[in-house]
C-alpha cells in the first residue's frame, strides 16, 4: 500500500507542473494586455508603458517569465493582484475556506441523497420509487444550478422565508447553496448507484448470502452496497471537481464570499495574476482531491494496489 501511495504521489507532480504551464500560457497568450488596458485608461504614455513593462519583466521572453513564475510559486508567491496590490495567495487563502465548506456540504448532500435514491431504486426496481428517483435524476442533470438557486431563493427565502437568501454567516446560510450545488451531482450519483447496485445484486455472493438465511438488510448493506459503492467512489473525485467549478457560479447566485467570487471579479477587472493564481490553485486542489480518491479506492479495493 505504501508503495502505491508513493507512486501515485509521484505521478501527481508532472500533472501539477503541466497545469501551471497550461494556465500560465493561456493567461499570457496576449502578452501585457491587462497592463496595457489598465494604464491606457489611466492616461499613461507609450513611454511610461514601456518602462513599467520592463520593470514588471513583461518584455522578457515567455519562458523566462514562466521560469520566474514557477520559481516564485514554489515559494508560495503567486504574485500580486493588479488592482488591490495584495498578494494573490493570501487573497485566495482568505476566501478558500468558504468555498471548501460549500463544496463539501454540496458533496455530502449529493452523496447522501444520491446513494439513498439509487439504492432504493435498485432494490425496488420498476416500482414508482424507481421511476421517481430516475425522473428526479434526469431533471437534476438538466436543471441549470443557477436557476435552481434562484427558485430556492424565491420560494424558501422570499415567499416562505425559512433560510437567508444571501451571505456566508452561520449554517443556515449554507443550506440553500449546498442543496443547489449538490442537486446535479445527486442525479448522476443516483443513476450510477442504481446501475451498479443492480449489477451487484445479480452476483453469486449476494445469492449465497440470501441462501444462507441472512436478513435482507444485512445482505443489502454489508454484501451488496459495499461492492456497489466502488464505482461511486471513483465518481466522487470527478464530481468534486465539478462541484468546485459549480461553486464559482453558486457563490454569485447567493452573493457568498469565496474563491468563485474572487475569480469572476478578477476576470471582469482583467486582473491577470489573480485569475492565473486562482485557477491554478483550484486546479491543484482538484488534482489533490483525485489523488485522495484514488488512494481511498485502493484502500477499499485491495485488488487495485497490486496492479
Amino acid at each position: 500500500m505504501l508503495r502505491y501511495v508513493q507512486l501515485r504521489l509521484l505521478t501527481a507532480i508532472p500533472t501539477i507542473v503541466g497545469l501551471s504551464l497550461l494556465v500560465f500560457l493561456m493567461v499570457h497568450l496576449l502578452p501585457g494586455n491587462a497592463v496595457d488596458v489598465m494604464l491606457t485608461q489611466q492616461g499613461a504614455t507609450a513611454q511610461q508603458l514601456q518602462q513599467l513593462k520592463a520593470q514588471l519583466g513583461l518584455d522578457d521572453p515567455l519562458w523566462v517569465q514562466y521560469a520566474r513564475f514557477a520559481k516564485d510559486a514554489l515559494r508560495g508567491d503567486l504574485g500580486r493582484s493588479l488592482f488591490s496590490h495584495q498578494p494573490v495567495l493570501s487573497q485566495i487563502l482568505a476566501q478558500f475556506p468558504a468555498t471548501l465548506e460549500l463544496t463539501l456540504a454540496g458533496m455530502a448532500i449529493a452523496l447522501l441523497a444520491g446513494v439513498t435514491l439509487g439504492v432504493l431504486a435498485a432494490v425496488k426496481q420498476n416500482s414508482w420509487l424507481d421511476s421517481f428517483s430516475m425522473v428526479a435524476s434526469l431533471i437534476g442533470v438538466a436543471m441549470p444550478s443557477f436557476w435552481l438557486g434562484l427558485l430556492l431563493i424565491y420560494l424558501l427565502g422570499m415567499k416562505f422565508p425559512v433560510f437567508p437568501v444571501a451571505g456566508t454567516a452561520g449554517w443556515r446560510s449554507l443550506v440553500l447553496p449546498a442543496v443547489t450545488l449538490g442537486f446535479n451531482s445527486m442525479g448522476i450519483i443516483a443513476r450510477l448507484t442504481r446501475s451498479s447496485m443492480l449489477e451487484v445484486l445479480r452476483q453469486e455472493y449476494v445469492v449465497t448470502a440470501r441462501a444462507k438465511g441472512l436478513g435482507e438488510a444485512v445482505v443489502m448493506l454489508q454484501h451488496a452496497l459495499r461492492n456497489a459503492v466502488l464505482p461511486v467512489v471513483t465518481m466522487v473525485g470527478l464530481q468534486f471537481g465539478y462541484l468546485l467549478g459549480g461553486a464559482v457560479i453558486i457563490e454569485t447566485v447567493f452573493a457568498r464570499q469565496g474563491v468563485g467570487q474572487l475569480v469572476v471579479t478578477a476576470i471582469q477587472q482583467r486582473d491577470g495574476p489573480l485569475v492565473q493564481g486562482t485557477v491554478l490553485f483550484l486546479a491543484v486542489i482538484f488534482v489533490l482531491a483525485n489523488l485522495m480518491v484514488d488512494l481511498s479506492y485502493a484502500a477499499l479495493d485491495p485488488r487495485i494496489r497490486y496492479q
Partner: protein
Amino acid sequence: MQVEQPLVAPVALAEPGLARSRSQAAIVWGSFRRNRGALIGGAILLALILLALLAPWIAPYDPLQPAILQRLQPPSPNHLFGTDQFGRDTFSRVLYGGRTSLWLGLVAVGLSVAIGGFLGLLAGYYRGAVDLVVSRVVDLMLAMPRILLALVIVFTLGTGVTNVMIAVGISGVPDYARLIRSSTLAAREHVYVEAARVIGVPNWRIMARHILPNVVAPLIVVGTLGLGAAILSAAGLSFLGLGAQPPVIEWGLMLSDGRSMLSVAWWLTAFPGLAIMLAVLAVNLLGDGLRDALDPRLRAR
C-alpha cells in the same frame, strides 16, 4: 416493417464497403423509434429550434422595444410570460433568447467535435510523437474542472457570444479527442486499413474513407450528450456576466437580469430557466436514445 433484434456488432453499421445497408439503418431507426424518451426529447428539441428560428414571425412583441406603461406585468393572455422592468415582453424575449442560447451550444459542440475529433484521429492514426503530445495535453485539460478552463479562455479572449462559443468549445475538446483516439486505435487494426495502406492509398484518404466512418457513431452519441452540457456552460457564463452582453438576448443573461427583480417579478427568472432546462432535458433524452440505438450492447439495460 418488422425489425429483428440485431445480432450484429455496432461497428458493422459503419463498415466501409457495405456501409449503411438499408437493414442496418432500419435496425437503428427501429430501436430508436421504440424509445419513447428519445422520441419525446427529439420532438421537444425540434420544437424549441423551430420556435427560435421562427421567432421574428411568431413573437408577439419586439423583444428590445421598451414599453414603459407595460412595466413588470405578471403573466396574462396579453403577455404570456409577463413583462420586465422596461415593459418588454418576456415570451418574445425567451423566443429570441433561444436563437442565441441554442446556437451557442450547437456551435460550441461543433467546435469541440471538429477540433477534438481531428486531434484524436491524428493521435490514434499516427501514434508515436503526435499521440504523445496530444494525449499529454488532453490529460492536462482533463485534470482541470471544465468551467475553470472555460473561464481562463474567456479571460484571454474577452466576453461576448463568439468568445464564449470558443471557450466552451475548447473546454470540450479533450472528451472528443480521447474518444476518437481510442476508436481510431481500434479501427486502424482492421485488415482493410492494412490493405489500403499496402496498395499505397494516401494517409489522409485512409483516415477519411476507412477510419472516420468507424468512429462516427460514438461521436454522434457523445456529441449529442455534450450539447446539453455546452448549453448549460454557455448560459452559466452569460449568467456570470462573462458571456453574451446586452442588447444580445440570451437565456442565461435573462436569468441574471431577472435576479435583481426576483422579489417582485418571479416570471423573469422562471421562464428563461425553464427554457434552458427543457432544452437540456430534450438533448439528454435524445442522446440516451441514440446511444441505445447505435450501441446494441447497451440496449438490454
